[in-house]
Each structure stands twice: as structure tokens, then as C-alpha cells.
């Protein structure tokens, strides 16, 4: 049931990424070159919607529909790796004019070029895992409580 739910959300996500043109490198490139405001408007409206929706879940103290646990999350303090990793990611994103979600959607559409990008993506994740094998997880180490409880302290 949990996997089915994840599949359905993923399918909607993939369809929206496709229909919005995020799987078309020209659309992404026009956005990053400020030739077309679509990318920024799309991203900003998605972010505002997600923010408002998650706030509502928090305010209403919602429990998850499938597991019954309280909806909760942790935020992360910025570190150098967030900058360094994002410089690499941003470079690849601009060159391939596609990001990880749309790469999967391109595969579904039957875009043959996506096989090359996906192969590189999998290799990159594999190399990261090899380079950090045995190291303690930075994500867990630096996680801190959700902003609601964090903001209660001075």
C-alpha cells in the first residue's frame, strides 16, 4: 500500500514534470537564460504551494494517512558540502538541461538521450557512495528538530 501510494504520487509528479516541459532541455535552458519566465514562475508557485500545504499539515497536527504517525520533519544546518555539491549539481543541471526527476520522466517518454544522462546519474550516485563508505552520516549527525520546536527556544 505504501509503495502503491509512492508510485501514484510519482506518476503525477512525472506527468507534471513532462507536461510543464521540464523534460524538454530547451524549456529549461530558456528559463535559466531568462528568455522565458515559465521556469521561475513554475518553480516559485510549486514552492509556495508546498510551503502552505505543509504548514497546514503542521498546524492541524495531521497524522499520515497510511501509517498514522504524526507528520514531522527535521531541518538541516548549512555546511560546506551543500555549497560544493550544489556547484557540481548546478553545472551538470545547466549542461544537460535536465534534473533527476525529469531524467526518469524522459526515460518513460522514450527519449533515447536520457539513457546517457541516467547512466551518468547512477554512476555519480555510486561514486558518492563509494567515496563516503564507512563515514558517519552527516545528515543524521547535523539534523536538528523541526522549526516549530526550534523556534520555541531563544
Amino acid at each position, binding site marked *: 500500500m505504501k509503495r502503491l501510494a*509512492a*508510485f*501514484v504520487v*510519482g*506518476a503525477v*509528479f512525472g*506527468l*507534471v*514534470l513532462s*507536461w*510543464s516541459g521540464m523534460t*524538454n*532541455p530547451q524549456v529549461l*535552458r530558456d528559463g535559466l*537564460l*531568462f528568455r522565458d519566465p*515559465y521556469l521561475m514562475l513554475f*518553480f516559485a*508557485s510549486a*514552492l*509556495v504551494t508546498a*510551503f502552505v500545504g*505543509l504548514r497546514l499539515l503542521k498546524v492541524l497536527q495531521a497524522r*499520515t494517512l*497510511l501509517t498514522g*504517525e504524526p507528520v514531522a*520533519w527535521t*531541518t*538541516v544546518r*548549512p555546511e560546506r*558540502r*551543500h*555549497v*560544493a*555539491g*550544489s*556547484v*557540481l*549539481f*548546478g553545472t*551538470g*543541471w545547466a549542461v544537460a*538541461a535536465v534534473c533527476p*526527476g525529469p531524467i*526518469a*520522466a524522459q*526515460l*518513460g*517518454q522514450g527519449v533515447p*538521450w536520457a539513457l*546517457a*544522462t541516467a547512466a*551518468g546519474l*547512477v554512476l*555519480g*550516485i555510486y*561514486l*558518492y*557512495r563509494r567515496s563516503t563508505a564507512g563515514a558517519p552520516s552527516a545528515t543524521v549527525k547535523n539534523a536538528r528538530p523541526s*522549526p516549530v520546536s526550534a523556534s520555541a527556544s531563544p
Partner: protein
Amino acid sequence: MDQQLAWYLAGPALGLCVVALRWLLNERLAATGAWSELVERGPARLGTRGWLLIGVIAGGVVFGLFGSSLDGYGYLTEHFGAPVVVAVLVAAGVLIGFGAKTAGGCTSGNGLSGNAILSPASFVATATFFGTAILVSFVIEALL
């Protein structure tokens, strides 16, 4: 689906995917995390993250049946032959995968899900990857 969906429909729909996954499973919508599970576990033992990835592919299949198909690959196939494009895409894919893992997320994990919960690391990551991508796009434009 031949025309691009209006941003004021597509954007909120994308945002609702983030909310839906949180409400259903208390999970972060993150495409790189989904790919990671495939790398970590292989295709036979996928959990929710891996099935999210299968879903994204399925969403692409649906669009492929009803939408307009991609002709070529943007500026890359306009300027380069197939072997160069493949090499560039593999190299860019490595940067995307290694970089996103290092930064703890990509455009979805940090850019949408992380920013929406006001995670400071995601603010830093998003400003960095958007800034870098804009800069690199203009550099490419100048060099072509």
C-alpha cells in the same frame, strides 16, 4: 498535452505532490533519493523511494502516449554530433548525481521539499545551484 501546461496549474500541482507524499507517508519528495534507492538496493528490492521513481517513469510513459515528443536534444544536438552529446550527457549526469548526493538533494529534494520546510541547508543549496546553473548557461551561450 501538446501544449505546455500553464505555470499556474503545473506549479501548484507539483507542490501538491510534495504535500501528498508528506501526508500519506511522512516522506520527502526527492528525485535523487529515489534514484539512490535504485542504486543501493537494485531493481528487485525497491521500497517507497524506488517505487516513487517507477511512478515518475510511468508518468513519462503516459505523457509519451498523449503529449508531443522531443525532437533532438536542445542546444546539444543543434551544435554537436551524437557521440559528443552522449559523452557530455554522461559527464553531466555524473556531476548531477555526485553533486546532488553531496548537497543532500537536487531541485526536488532541496529546491522544493527542503525549502518548503524552511531548512537552512536547502536555502543555501538552492541559491548555489540556481546561481551556478544560470552562470553556466550564460557561459555556454557565450561560447557556442
